[in-house]
């Protein structure tokens, strides 16, 4: 082996003295401050695990001397936000619902905090986009069709006390009779065929429509209206429009008329603050169908 390039001798001060098959290792000493920085980091790391929660135990991690917990920090932040929002919430509770829109700042606060309330408490049934669950009784809140009324006060009322629940005396209430007990199968078929035509659709069996219309006028029009326009005082759905709560095909209609439905929504009066109810009502009102 040539010793030209490095001309190093074994044990030369600039090598570590290590040698593998004639290959020697330079010693480029690391700056000592670097080593100390490294030690300082280790010391810091140890101190950190003492000061903060760190070592996992059987049921929980060591709590740390400073008593820090991220959960407590979040709770503190939430409390801080609540105190900060308290004056606005008070303002929101103090005004006429219909006039909140005149105060741009208050309105935009209400709509965004209402959106948060909606995602927490309402999305399970009405969907995170408020689109409802098609044909299963959870109404779409984006459209212009309302069971119980779409102006801001009606919406507020619906949310505060709910629908057909047993918690609130003020809950919206109505019950459609189950015609399975009263009608023969043929009569049900006749009225269903007629209902199909109400919204401009074609009946499964046009021959039964005539008889159905009579049955409808006698039994159903009181709630659903002569022309099927519905009645928001009883939450009776409009049967003449393009929107169905439970479905507009023959099978779904037959099921509805035979067994009746009984859609229940909980009331929020005791679960949410008045400011939250107002906020979510305003939020729902501006989703596209508010009146």
């Amino acid at each position, binding site marked *: 082996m040539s010793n030209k390039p490095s001309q190093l001798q074994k044990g030369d001060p600039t090598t570590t003295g*290590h040698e*593998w098959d004639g290959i020697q290792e330079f010693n480029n000493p690391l*700056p000592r401050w*670097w080593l100390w920085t490294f030690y300082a980091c280790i010391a810091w790391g140890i101190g950190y695990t003492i000061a903060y929660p760190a070592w996992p135990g059987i049921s929980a991690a060591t709590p740390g001397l400073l008593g820090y917990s991220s959960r407590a920090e979040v709770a503190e932040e939430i409390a801080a936000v609540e105190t900060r929002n308290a004056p606005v919430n008070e303002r929101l509770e103090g005004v006429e619902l219909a006039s909140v829109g005149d105060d741009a700042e208050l309105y935009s606060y209400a709509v965004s905090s209402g959106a948060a309330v909606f995602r927490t408490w309402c999305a399970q049934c009405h969907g995170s986009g408020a689109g409802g669950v098609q044909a299963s009784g959870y109404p779409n809140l984006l459209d212009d069709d309302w069971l119980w009324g779409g102006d801001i006060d009606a919406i507020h009322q619906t949310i505060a006390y709910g629908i057909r629940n047993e918690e609130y005396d003020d809950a919206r209430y109505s019950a459609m009779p189950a015609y399975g007990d009263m009608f023969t199968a043929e009569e049900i078929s006749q009225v269903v065929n007629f209902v199909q035509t109400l919204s401009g659709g074609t009946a499964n069996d046009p021959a039964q429509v005539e008889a159905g219309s009579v049955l409808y006028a006698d039994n159903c029009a009181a709630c659903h209206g002569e022309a099927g326009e519905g009645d928001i005082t009883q939450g009776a759905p409009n049967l003449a429009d393009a929107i169905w709560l439970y479905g507009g095909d023959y099978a779904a209609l037959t099921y509805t008329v035979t067994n009746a439905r009984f859609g229940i929504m909980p009331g929020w009066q005791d679960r949410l603050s008045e400011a939250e109810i107002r906020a979510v009502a305003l939020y729902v009102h501006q989703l*596209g169908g508010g009146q």
Partner: protein
Amino acid sequence: MSDSAQPQQSLYAAREPIFPRRVSGKFRNLKWIVMAVTLGIYYVTPWIRWDRGPELPDQAVLLDLAHRRFYFFWIEIWPHEFYFVAGLLIMAGLGLFLFTSALGRVWCGYACPQTVWTDLYILVERWIEGDRNARLRLHRQTGWDLRKARLRITKWTLWLLIGLATGGAWVFYFADAPTLLRDLVTLQAHPIAYTTMAILTGTTFLFGGFAREQICIYACPWPRIQAAMMDEDTITVGYRAWRGEPHKHSEEVKAGAEMGDCIDCMACVNVCPMGIDIRDGQQLECITCALCIDACDDVMAKIGKPRGLIDYLALSDEEAEREHRTPKSVWRHILRPRTILYTVLWSLVGIGLVFALFIRAPFDITVAPLRNPTHVVMSDGSIRNTYDVRIRNKYGEDGTFRIVASGHPAMIVDLEGVDGKTVTIAPQEMKLQRVYVTVPAGTGPALAERTDFRFWIEDVNSTAREHKDTSFFGQGN
């Protein structure tokens, strides 16, 4: 491993303090000028005023983090225009590449903050404690006496003050400088301002006063990258070995060889802020500050030899001169495919940015279709899609914008909470407007799975308009 019975060497070494000697000459003067200019820019910039009207800050250069705006004289950059900043950073990068491949580590030698502030700190040090020999003596003096304590404390105090001014100037870039200064002095500024200042004061003090070359050698990645960008044509600080060697105290001279121009006076080593010997050739530690050139020229003048034993030269020059060929001209060194390529790229990015700056509309828009649900059936059977349209009014006054959907004649636009088809937005504000597009039952888009169309947002008061393409989802969806 063949053998382990070797004397163990320490793998760690303490920093060797460096005491650069004072030097004067043209490069030293150039460095003074660069220092004055760069520090001047740094300290003065936040105080320059620029009138933008009553609604906007009048600070020429301001990084308004709270409102997410970057003001640079007549240019105002919004967060979504961050590509301008990215572009500038790319230009800075390409610029560094260009300079490095043409002129070596000029950035390190002259303009890098670490160099500038270290230079300033050394200036203070020399001013308080004297030149190299005096400082060496003070360093070697074991034990403290009144004089040493006085000198050290004065020096450190001055360093700290400079550090404080450095950190202090930094925070002015992020808030209205005069207001912040008043708040800082009356102890009413935000804790973040004080913390930032404290951290920057500390790092300046440590890096400029004590760490100095250690930062360049161990902390900075740039020297390593730069080494890969320099070649034999790069003009850098070099030693004309053909002329200097064999130097005075070399083995060859002792053995009777004729001496070269280098008289081994160590002037180049003594002035070096990095503590290296440039005669060993280009090395990672060398920041090419050119102070050794000044030092050597001085000595050459004294002993009556031509200047330039140490000089700015390309590596190929040294070889050419050694072989008595004429070296390439400076321009031939600088203008080569690589530097030309960097210049072209740099200019392209620059032209692109200037172009983008000029075609910026006075407002801009984003359109986000709401797809949860994809579409809503209305009671009359018509189909509605909903879009979140965000309009940024970059005018200095109220802007009124009309929202139009073009793509199918049946499409009807409605705005949530607004009668009519226009929105008015306050100056410098962004507004989120929910927009409904509805088509009657049975029309093409209502039945189709998807219909592409275009939103036009038109400024009612001028001809400016912007568009965004999006799609309408119908019942076929």
